[in-house]
């Protein structure tokens, strides 16, 4: 778009603003990302590969993936159910539910972790019963999954609520009036309409699940090779002055972040195309 002289800012204003923005991005986002990879490869490719093959690092990568995968189905189920209820129905306590969904955003992750210690720790509310039945939650993988779940559950619901509200109930009602059962309606009408929004929410919550530090740190107990996820492992390696090991592990996380970014962009582009399809200008009516 060509702007006229009257609406144009002076050149020095434009270049200062542009310089500030790009400079900030470079120092706070670009440089650290480069630094991670430079440090990881500081002693060459073999040392990097060696650091990743190290059993404790390998187990941390594995555990990170396991937790992310374990959390996913719960997040999808909760996210779709909550968004469905909020977007398509009116009920008492709806605004309370909306507020509660945002709770994990408001609460510090460390506090979130402490909640689970209070509930399931050996001194906690259910601690006695759990140890009597030899169920281990705190300082074990189940606790870490719970903590991650708490941190990540809002992402999908947050993504779907505005989307489903915008789409309204008409298509679902049409499906029912045509004889579809609840499940047929969901699978054939609702799900295809929200699939990109759902995928977007999955990507965001997955990125958060893999990167979560605070809440997981509290319930993990840091047992090497057993309850260390990648972010926790990076900290341990770094504290041991194992720079290459720490940065090699960090580079995996950074790569995940990049993949997430690309996936997010692709999905965003698809979603925009879909909305454009909905609001596209109508061709003229063919008069017969």
């Amino acid at each position: 778009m060509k702007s006229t002289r009257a609406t144009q800012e002076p050149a020095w204003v434009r270049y200062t603003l542009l310089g500030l923005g790009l400079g900030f991005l470079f120092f706070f986002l670009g440089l650290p990302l480069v630094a991670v990879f430079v440090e990881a490869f500081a002693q060459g490719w073999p040392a990097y590969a060696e650091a990743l093959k190290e059993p404790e690092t390998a187990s941390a990568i594995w555990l990170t993936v396991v937790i992310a995968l374990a959390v996913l189905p719960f997040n999808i189920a909760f996210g779709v159910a909550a968004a469905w209820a909020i977007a398509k129905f009116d009920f008492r306590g709806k605004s309370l539910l909306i507020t509660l969904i945002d709770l994990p955003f408001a609460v510090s992750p460390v506090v979130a972790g402490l909640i689970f210690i209070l509930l399931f720790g050996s001194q906690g509310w259910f601690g006695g019963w759990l140890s009597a039945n030899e169920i281990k939650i705190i300082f074990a993988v189940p606790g870490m999954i719970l903590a991650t779940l708490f941190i990540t559950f809002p992402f999908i619901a947050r993504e779907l609520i505005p989307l489903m509200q915008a789409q309204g109930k008409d298509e679902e009602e049409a499906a029912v009036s045509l004889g579809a059962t609840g499940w047929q309606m969901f699978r054939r009408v609702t799900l295809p309409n929200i699939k990109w929004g759902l995928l977007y929410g999955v990507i965001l919550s997955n990125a958060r699940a893999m990167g979560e530090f605070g809440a997981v740190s509290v319930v993990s107990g840091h047992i090497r090779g057993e309850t260390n996820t990648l972010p926790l492992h990076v900290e341990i390696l770094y504290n041991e002055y194992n720079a290459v090991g720490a940065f090699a592990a960090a580079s995996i996380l950074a790569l995940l972040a990049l993949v997430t970014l690309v996936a997010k962009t692709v999905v965003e582009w698809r979603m925009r195309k879909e909305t454009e399809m909905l609001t596209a200008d109508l061709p003229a009516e063919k008069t017969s």
Partner: protein
Amino acid sequence: MSIEIRNISKRFGNFVALDDIKLDIPTGELVALLGPSGCGKTTLLRIIAGMETADEGEILFSGAEATHLHARERNVGFVFQHYALFRHMTVFENVAFGLRVKPRKERPSDAEIRRRVMELLGLVQLDWLADRYPSQLSGGQRQRIALARALAVEPKVLLLDEPFGALDTKVRKELRRWLRRLHDDMHISSVFVTHDQEEALEVADRVVVMNHGRIEQIGSPDEVYSNPASPFVYQFLGNVNVFHERVHGGYAEIERGAADGGATAFVRPHDIEIAHQALEQSLPATVQHVHPIGPVVRIELLHQSEIVEVELSRERHEALQLAAGQSVWFRPRQLKVFGADAAPRSTSEKQGFLF
């Protein structure tokens, strides 16, 4: 299939959407629910479809209780104002939906589905669009596809919620006529909701005029237009001049002796005669404005600080040669009087009533 609506009431919080509605819709009839927005017409339609539940009352389909039947089991075709086509399916799949979701035992074969869908698309004259997506169609085309989709399950009742509300005037007129033909060919009962009086009068066999959750009048289009049962119906259907008793001293004198004093007279703009000389029982006025609007000429007369709207045919206007500022005489050919209780007065009373 006939529909009986028995004493249906519905509230949303403190708002009374429907208040004790009674209505019979015989088989094969095309009924219009007409009223201003918020009068409850859409709510009534959704209750018939089973998308909303009534607080009180019953719905009967062909004499059988249907109040508690699930929307999916009612076998009604529903057409939405904003089409509600499945946006991720092609036109073909949209129309096929109702057949594909049938239980396996009743579901037709793929070839049969294909045949029926193409037949329906032919019926709405859009078979050449089968592979398009809804977003690639115009509004009028979308609504015709929505109709084909609703008809695919062979409903006994067709319910249409402001079906042409989102379309422009020309397409709307075309679709109206087309809906009427379709209804006559399909031998089903249809109910459609509209706030457009012209649409209701043109298409329907019977018009149900609603206001504030109540039925004001039920009748044929001609009945409700030429013999409105209440002041509301008079004012809602077409333009009207309202004469209040207190404005017109002469008419109050004649009305003296009646039980109440708050009577009102209604006169349609095209039921008023204008002349250059005083006629029997006519009133003096000044011409304020002359607006030729298409086939008619609308004249605004000023009579005792009140505006009276008159519609003349072009021929009559040419004969009269009216211009702003002229002094003329006017008299109603036909008028209807309602008492303060909104009850219509008898005809004998209203002749000479005004003057």
